[in-house]
Each structure stands twice: as C-alpha cells, then as structure tokens.
C-alpha cells in the first residue's frame, strides 16, 4: 500500500544544504578543521546540541570532517570533487517546508561564518557566495525526480528570493539512485520562470 496523498515531498525533514568551498582557498590541514570543530563545541558556538567530531578525511568521496550534532551534522570536505560545507538535518523540525529549509540555510551559513572566523582557519577558508545546493535525504518522500522539483519549487523560490532577490538560476538533474539535490545560483531570472529539466 502506498500513500495516495500528493505533496509528500513537502513533508521531508532530512533537509540538506551545501556551500561550496571557494576553489581559490589555500591548503588547509585536516587537523586545523578538526580543532576548529572542537573549539566550536567548547565555546558552544552553534545553536545545536553538539556531540563530537568525526574525522573521515581518509575515506574517498566521504563526508570529510563531521561535526556531529543532535539535530544535524555539519561536514566539511577539503579534498575530492566537491569541497564544501554540507549541512544534513537529522531530527524533525517545525514549520512548513519553506520555513524548515530557510532555517537549514541559515544554520549552514552560521556554521560557515563560525569556521571562517576560527583562529586557525581565518583567511584560509572561504565559501562561494553566489550559489548554494539544497535538497533532502529522503528517498521515500522526496525522490530525486522532476515531480519532486515541481512540488518543491514554490518553497525553493521563497528561500532563493531571500538569498538573491530578483533572479536565480536552477540546476537540477533527476537521478533515481541519488538523494534529491538542486543547485541554486544567483542569476537574472526568477526561479519560477526557469524550465525544469527532467
């Protein structure tokens, strides 16, 4: 038996946000990131129940260094194809999809700023400010399909408009095996006018 209700994607809770690292960043030692996350825990520098730091920098195409929190994980990858900061929500949050996504984006940006302000990383770590990737780790409610994108587009528009009023480009690739991801870039057209590529 499957649900006959539509708009399941709007119920997705495991939201993900990724900020790409600026490719012009200098070399950053793994140990510096590990230490920065530990300092965040000591200082209670994020509005999270912060638990521990897990270093997976030895794992190919892995999550890098992970700040494990109760509500979400923050992982920073320095190497590989997609260096950046990834926020992955784990516990349910309140509000509608747009509100939850908005909170996730804000949390990611806060963590990015906290890392950029860390004494060991200051001046070394920068993030691309003209694009952001958002999505959901929920293959049940939000599979990586064009239908999910259609369903979530109004909420994505709301969040994108707050980031870059006036125009956003959207990049989406349907993939039956992957988790749902959309890349939003600062652009010239409102997100609602951009056709959806299946």
């Amino acid at each position, binding site marked *: 038996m499957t*649900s006959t209700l539509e708009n399941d994607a709007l*119920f997705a809770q495991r939201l993900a946000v990724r900020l790409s690292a600026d490719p012009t960043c200098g070399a950053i030692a793994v140990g510096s990131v590990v230490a920065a996350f*530990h300092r965040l825990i000591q200082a209670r520098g994020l509005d999270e129940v912060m638990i521990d730091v*897990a270093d997976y920098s030895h794992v*190919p195409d*892995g*999550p890098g260094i992970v700040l494990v929190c109760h509500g979400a994980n923050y992982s920073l990858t320095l190497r590989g194809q997609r260096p950046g900061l990834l926020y992955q929500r784990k516990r349910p949050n309140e509000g509608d999809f747009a509100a939850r996504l908005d909170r996730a984006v804000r949390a990611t940006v806060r963590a990015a700023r906290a890392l950029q302000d860390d004494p060991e990383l200051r001046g070394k770590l920068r993030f691309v400010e003209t694009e952001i990737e958002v999505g959901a780790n929920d293959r049940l409610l939000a599979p990586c399909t064009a239908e999910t994108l259609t369903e979530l587009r109004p909420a994505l528009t709301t969040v994108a408009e707050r980031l870059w009023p006036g125009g956003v480009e959207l990049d989406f690739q349907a993939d039956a095996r992957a988790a749902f991801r959309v890349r939003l870039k600062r652009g010239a057209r409102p997100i609602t006018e951009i056709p959806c590529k299946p």
Partner: protein
Amino acid sequence: MAATWKERLNDQIDEPLGREIDVFEAQIELRWQGKLEERLFSESRLRRGVYGQRYDNGLRHDGQRTQRLGFPERPTKGANTVWDAPGMQRIKIPLGRLTAEQMDVIADVAEEYSDGIAHVTTRQDLQLHYVHIDDTPDLMRRLAAVGVTTREACGNVVRNVTACPLSGVCQDEVFDVTPYAHACAYFMLGHPDAQDFGRKFKIAFSGCRHGSCALARIHDLGAIATERDGQRGFEVHLGGGLGAVPQQAKLLDEFVPEAEMLPLVQAIGRVFARLGEKKNRQRARLKFLVSSLGIGELARLVREERKVLRDDRRWTDYLENLQALDDDPRSAFPQDERTWPTSDQTDQSDPTDRSDPYRDRQGAAGDPAAREPAAEGFDAWRASNVVRQRQPGYVTATVRLPLGDIAAGPLRALAEIARDLTGDTVRTTAEQNIVLRWVPEADLPELHRRLSRAGLAAPAASTIVDVTSCPGTQTCKLGISSSRGVALAIGERLEAKPLPDAVRPLRVKVSGCFNACGQHHVADIGLLGVSRSVEGRRVPHFQIVLGGDAKDNVASFGLATAAVPSKNVPAAIERLTDLFAKERHEGESFAAFVQRAGKNAVRHRLEDLLRVPSYEQEPSYYSDWGDPREYTITDMGEGECAGELVTATKFGLAAAEVAAYEAQTLFERGELGLAAGRAHEAMLLAAQALLRADSSEVSEVPEEIVREFRTRLLDTGVFQDPHVGDKFAQYLLRPNGAGSESFAREKAQERLEETMLFIEAAHACYHRISAQKAREQ
C-alpha cells in the same frame, strides 16, 4: 499524512522479519510510555543490533571540562543511556556475503540515517554510526526488504556467523563452506535454544586448517572443513575467544559429518544455555565453561544433549542443494549476453608476467580489442590486491578500505561494478576489506579503472600498511586510546618509504582497549590501548603485543612487550620492522624472530620511545591521534558487549505485553475481532514464556501450549495465585471466539482487560518460580 516505509515495503518484507520489526517499534513506543522496563528494553534493542555509543550518557569532556550535552529530557534506552544520544546500528552480514542490491540499500540508509559511512567490522558485519533510535525501525525495514537483518547482531545470542571470504574460490580449501555457514547462521537465528545464554556466542567456518582468513580457533565454535573417506565433515573446536585473557579453542571432535553439524551446534547451544555462567558476566563466555568442565566432560554433555534433540528437517534440507548460494557467474547468468570465461579455458600464463596478459582473454566487460590500456598504478594494485581463483580464468580482487570505512557513493559504485563484472556478490573480510570474487581475469584493467574512479583502487591490501582497527575512542564507550587514529598514522608512516619484502606481508591490528575487538592478539604486531599517568596527567599509550600468529586458524597469541606513548607508536613500529628486516634469518617468521631475539632485547631497542616528555616540553603527547583535546579517560562508559541478562521467560513476557499493546491499538481502531484475537495470542505468548522457565522445549501450536499450560503449570498448582486461585488461568483456557467480525465492543474490551490480568498473573507466577529456584540454590 505522508507515506511511510512500512506502507511502501509491506509486501517486500518476509512476514516474520516484518513482524519482528513491528514488535521492536511497539517496544520503543512502550518504553516511551514507561511500560517496558529499562533492562528489558536495553537487551531487546541490542538483540536488534541497536547499540550504544560513546557519550550516550549525555556527558562529554570537551578538553577543558566535562559538559552535559543538553539532550532533551526523555526516557532512557538503557542504564545511563540517553534516548536521543546517537548510537550504532550493527547489521548482520552472515559470511560477509552481500549482493549488489543490498549494497545499494546500505548506501542509502547510511546516507539518510547515519553519517554517510558504512564500516566493515572485524567479524564481517557492517556498522552505521550516529544513528538515532527512532530511525531504526525504518532502517531495518529497508534492509529487510532486500533480505538483510540486524536481528541478534548484538546481545547474548549467536552473533554473526563468519567464514573465509574466499570460500568457494580458494586454491587451498578442502571444500566450499558457504552453504554450511549460511545454513548454520539462519538455523540459529532466533532459535529458541539460543535465547537464554549468559553471554554472546560466536561461530566461524574455515575451508582449510592452515589458513588465517577465518580465525576459527578464536571463536566460541570454530568449524574447519575436512574430509574422511570421501565424506565431508568438520573438525570442531570449542571455547575460543579473545578479550582480556585470550583462549584458543579446544578440539571437541575431529570429524563431525556434514549432516550432524547443525544438530551439534544446537546441542552445544542448549548445554551453554543450561550450564553457562549467568551471574558473573566476566566469566560467562563458553571458554570459561570449557575451562571449568574440561573439554572431555563438555563433549560428553553435548553428546547426551544431541541424543534427546527432536529431529528437525532444517538440519539436512540444505544439503540437497549445496549450490543454492553459488555466485559462479557461469551458472548464475547462463543466459547473460556477457561472455564469461569457461572452466575449460585452462590458464597457462605465468602469474608474474606483466606483458599485456589481457589482450586476448575473454571477459564480461566486452570485446577485448575495444578495451583501454591499464590505468596508472595497475601493476602495483594487481600484485598486492589480486589472487587467482581455483577456477581458471577468474581472480578475486580485494578492495582495501581504510579503517574498514566506505562512503555511500563509492559503495554504490562498488555495487555497480559487482553487477557488471562479477557474479553480483561481494564478501566483507575480517581484515575490514571487501573482496570482489569471480572477476574474469581479462577484466582486471577495466575493474581497476572503475575502482580508481570510485577511489577504491588503493594497493597494498592485506599488507602491513592495511592496518586493522576497532572503532576505539571514536565511537566506542569502552575505548581507552584512539585505535583508528594510531592505525592511520602507522599506515601513513610505513607507506612513506619502500618496504622490504619481508616486512610487507606482516599484519598490524589495533584494539582501543583490552576487549580486543581489533583482534590484536593474533597479529604479528598487535596494539592494545592503555593509559598512563605522567606528572598527574593522563597520556594515551599502546601496549605493543608481539608474536601472534593467525595462521593455522590462529596458531598463537602475542604477548605484551612494552607500553609506548601513542604518539611514538608509528616510530616504534617502524623500528621493529627495520629490526626484523635486518636481523631475521632466512625464511624466519616475525613471531619466530621475536621468540629468538627475546622480548627483553626487543623492548630494549624501543627504550627511548617509551619515555614521555613533560607537558611543558611537548604537550602533543598529552592528546591522542586525531583529537586535539587534552587526553582523558573520563569519557569512558559502561560497555554493552555483555548485554543485559534477561531470561527467555522475561523476553516472552515482554513479547506478550507488546501483543497486548497491539490488541489495544486494534481495539482503538474499531477492529474488534482482530483485537480479541491478538489479545488471545498475547495470553498464549505469556503462557509459552512461563513454560520456558523449566524447559526450552515448548510448542508453537496454540492447542499444545494450552494443554501444556494446564498440565505443567495449572494442575501442579504453580500458576495458582495465593489470593484468587486459578481465576486468571481460566481466561486462557476458555474458547476465545475471536476473529469474528461481529465481535461486540464490550466483549472485546473484556478480553483486553482479562489479557492484562493474565499477563500480570504470569509475571507474578514467574516471580514465585524464580524465588523458589533461588531458595533451592
């Protein structure tokens, strides 16, 4: 309401498996409501592989002070275990055998519920870390839909049954142990005779006597393939184990015919459940029973037990189709358009010849002429990671996983590779790697290219740089020192320079504490995490354990030689291996070299590395590898390896309560007949549980349960309540009349209330039985 995994996968999960997960979900709900006692819930979740993790008492030392982590106030999920603290989910992988479809799903659940990493353990299981307990039922459903269970991955039960990862393709095996190990794993899974152990019970199958793949003799039960007069059988060893005091298993029987293997395991389980230590958890493993009784007496008891077992078709049914699990692509994909080498293609090539050996060979990857040349690093990878199978034209390739970790993306890529280039399956190994079997040799360049793209083509598998490690302080509550951190540091140091041939095949294994999950006793160089106090501060150290030998299914255990500060361990290993390379005699093993040189002499060579500089001189010694916090052992917690001691009767009574809870849910939904039926089943479960207090031989047939309940418990007065006599017993004995759609609401409610009273009476009865037993003892 949105769709759920339960709805989505309802028709894809085998009924008993789905039912068990539903029961676990109900137990979570009952624990939330305070209706399931902590200890019982704790062992229940452990038996479903839901394990605790470091900091789950809600406290963590942040390098300056111990902080309360600030989890929401909720019920506990075990002693000092905060509900919301993330935990570990162990996934049972019998024989380490995984299909491509299973790998895909494990990658998905790792990504969605965990930190995106699947971790291969030293017993061929997989583990996901940082999982929230509320997510575990859906996680289990998704695994169950592809035939994977987490049941009995932890707790005082038969743990994952392991086997040589090369079984079926190995050059040296007596025969393929795959079907036997598989049958044993599923026969004992949830078996009533294996539910009342004082501690865990580990089983391993080995295809040969001399190998080191299966480590059969460090298991509670090690079965080694052998033949007698053309008949297949097993040499069976009992009572092995590592831990603080390692013990090599003792020979129970030189030859157990194949058809007798499962009844023997069952009989051993019954003897262990009956006579094994239950109170002192430190002495409850089978090895202590072997020590106290002697292997001869234990063998006699097992033989006696075997005689009284009731025949079970499952003992031998599987023998009729031993090829059922064959992953030979020639038989698995007979109609496939791919081209698989055939057994009559005798491979005449020299295995050391590197001169384009693939040019004309057949393979699954397509036309040889269209293939690209081998990628960079191919030769080194082939030399270390590839072995020929006994089937001509095929090889096995090892995917070296650093610390046993693989990320979700590469795991999916590996699944795809297994689909395209092999017989669809892989095996995890005790060395925390994954092997791809049945690779047509002609496809090796293609395999290497695809593994390289996925970041999985690291060479030097199963060499000294491929260090095995338990999770240690990263996630384990018992970890003393960072085993993973030091393992990586050792690998990096040794890989930085060319290694002498004599050193390359040595093995390093690291355990973060004396419980020895990293199997340090059986390595050439083992490391055991300890701590030392220096000038009032703690310093992480590792005991260097030398002289272990994993050959012959573990020939000998190593002994501690010196405690080295963690930060000096890589240098110490390098010095030891240099010493071995320079001073060994021709053909001398590392264990023999250490024996000849003498431990004191070896220790003397390390003397300068044993000293710890003062904190002011070198503060880095006072923190551990990969963790900049000042080192402390205050984060250690109470382990869950020993599980909770919960009797089969208590489990049965808990199951009855879950059924009664489900009956109430059905009642609230207006499904009155079903509610009454489930309520009656709850009473049957409670009666069955009580009958188990005196015998594990309890029927599953309702009429027989009722009959036995009457004769053994009611007529004997055992169930008689001092105040109300046999009143509650009558609720079970009378015709239940449930299932009828026209069941009146009032009547159904009455049945629910009676059921609760009956279960309460069963609890009271069990209390009286236990008290009586205690008095008798």
